[in-house]
């Protein structure tokens, strides 16, 4: 029997971690992730988990300790935000290239400077080339579901890759929502036991982890890593279906909302997908139909599925909660456009940078995007390729 509780995003992340019961958690506090670490520490103090927790002196050491623990053969988890993720940067790449299925909550927060503690996606978007799988969560329920699936995805023997489960700082991390929780036993059975093939602690079969890899082999190793993450879409979808069987909630790479009803589409990720869905329902009453395509998995980028989903569409607005300085629009925009390049009949695509540093994104903003799309359809023209929502001019 599922339990129903009212929990914040951070609380539900900690609750998922309690049920996953990892061998090692190494973490350092940072707003707005702190409550995950605090709640989990209480579980450790109360003996509700078997986890050995390392309260490290920095995020750099948090990720380093996770690399050590996962290489040793342990299931390792951590959580961070913004500058904490930035401090881990060097080790993110190492975790991925050593093929260590570490699972990390990234509570999305704007990167400094100037310092800001509120939500945008500049932190995780900056880490998009680090080799981690990235799953974005719209709400508290998805945080829970994604964390449990992340363990199973990352530890799949064809992948062995670390996974970031991202969710919006404060908006979701500190927002209380209704969440359905599975029984502990159901979760533990679903994720199974972590049995790595080459643990460092197998002293009878000594292994060298992390040797110097020069021009004669490095390239082949990178190629293997690229091919590994390319296998992730099928596995993520399989795990999403399996998870549906135990929870009633099935997940894919993308989520479609009202997509079939319209040739106009808003592409969005994270909590703003919820705002967009509510707006679309409101617009429907006024006789305006716009579809939503939510990107759940950003890495690997589901270009094939996006191409399919956008077949026959006329105009697409891509919403980016981060800026890529000097690039032609935000990171989701450039990748969506690139995915459409070979299509004979391409929709017109427009970019909206929104919500930087926690700037609120409201129903009115989404309505503006919808009306812009109607206008693009009418005129057949995109006036400004890159636009800003909710910024003072």
């Amino acid at each position: 029997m599922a339990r129903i509780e009212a929990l914040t995003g951070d609380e539900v992340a900690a609750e998922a971690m309690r049920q996953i019961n990892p061998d090692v958690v190494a973490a350092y506090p940072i707003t707005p992730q702190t409550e995950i670490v605090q709640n989990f520490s209480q579980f450790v103090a109360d003996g509700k988990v078997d986890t050995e927790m390392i309260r490290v002196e920095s995020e750099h050491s948090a990720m380093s300790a996770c690399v050590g623990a996962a290489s040793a053969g342990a299931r390792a988890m951590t959580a961070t935000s913004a500058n904490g993720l930035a401090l881990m940067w060097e080790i993110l790449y190492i975790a991925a290239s050593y093929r260590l299925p570490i699972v990390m909550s990234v509570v999305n927060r704007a990167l400094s400077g100037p310092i800001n503690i509120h939500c945008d996606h500049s932190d995780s978007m900056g880490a998009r080339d680090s080799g981690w799988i990235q799953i974005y969560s719209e709400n508290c329920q998805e945080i829970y579901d994604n964390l449990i699936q992340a363990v199973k995805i990352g530890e799949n023997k064809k992948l062995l890759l670390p996974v970031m489960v991202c969710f919006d700082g404060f908006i979701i991390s500190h927002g209380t929502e209704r969440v359905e929780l599975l029984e502990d036993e159901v979760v533990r059975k679903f994720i199974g036991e972590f049995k790595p093939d080459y643990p460092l602690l197998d002293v009878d079969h000594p292994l060298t982890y992390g040797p110097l890899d020069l021009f004669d082999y490095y390239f082949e190793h990178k190629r293997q890593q690229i091919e590994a993450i390319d296998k992730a879409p099928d596995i993520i979808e399989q795990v999403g279906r399996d998870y549906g069987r135990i929870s009633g909630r099935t997940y894919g790479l993308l989520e479609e909302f009202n997509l079939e009803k319209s040739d106009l589409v808003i592409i969005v990720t994270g909590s703003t997908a919820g705002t967009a869905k509510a707006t679309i329902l409101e617009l429907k009453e006024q006789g305006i139909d716009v579809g939503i395509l939510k990107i759940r998995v950003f890495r690997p980028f589901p270009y094939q599925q996006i191409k399919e989903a956008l077949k026959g569409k006329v105009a697409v607005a891509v919403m980016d909660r981060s800026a890529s300085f000097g690039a032609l629009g935000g990171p989701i925009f450039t990748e969506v456009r690139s995915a459409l390049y070979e299509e004979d009949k391409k929709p017109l695509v427009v970019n909206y940078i929104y919500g930087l540093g926690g700037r609120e994104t409201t129903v009115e903003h989404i309505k503006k995007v919808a009306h812009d799309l109607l206008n693009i359809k009418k005129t057949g023209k995109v006036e400004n390729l890159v636009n800003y929502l909710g910024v003072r001019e």
Partner: protein
Amino acid sequence: MPSLKELSKKEELISRGHRLCPGCGAGIIVRQVLLATDVPVVAGCATGCLEVATTIYPYTAWKIPWIHSAFENVAATISGVETAYRALKKKGKIDKDIRFIAFGGDGGTYDIGIQSLSGAIERGHRMLYICYDNEAYMNTGIQRSSASPMGCHTTTTPPGKAIPQGKSENRKDLTQIIAAHHIPYVAQACPAFHMDLIRKVQKALSVDGPSFINILSPCPRGWRYPANKTIEIAKLAVLTGFWPLYEVENGKYRITYKPRKRRPLREFLEAQGRFKHLLREENKQFLERLEREVEEREREIFAKAGEQI
């Protein structure tokens, strides 16, 4: 404590054929450290000479499980391995008794890795951290570190007309910084005093908590001396008081080797090219400053052990 003869029959855990320079102190140190172990050991390495020269893919010189992840984080990495060990042992997934050793050079320990090291030993992980201190960034080509002594030549502190002394600042006393963490065992060792070194490693591995040994690691390339002089120079470092051999066991200081007659520091300096400029008449004031500094530090350590130099 096994005799040298017994030790010589032990299986070497680091193989020959690695690519450390001839006369490199680090290779000698690792060999001595591993000879001191008698339970399975897992080692970690910070980025540096030792790491790049012993694990050039697809080869490895290490016959024990070994991990390297980055430059500044070997302490944190090994703390993760040690924690995983405790977690898995608790669950009955591992039954063996295993010890953990982290190796870092002075760059990876005194400088970029000091935070990671301080954090790991404060947290109390049962691990031995070995710093092989060759007193500069040798792997990148002899740049100064905070372990470089005042007055030495490095490629980022070259003596010149405006700065005739080379490195202007005194070295950091890392062993004392680590001792201030009040961990069960801290020591300074030297490969020329191998039985002293091995005894210290055995003590360090036997304590139930973190331990640290700072080992002077002469470098023929960086210190500018012939490769066959490593042990001789290492010995001079101790005999001149430049590198006192001592240990701090549960807060108690003990001088583990007291030279019968302290030799002049000059003898240590003259044996190396990196201090050549310091021995010139016009740089006398800098030489004297270094002599004073070395003597003060040595006196301080001896006083803590209730002894006089």
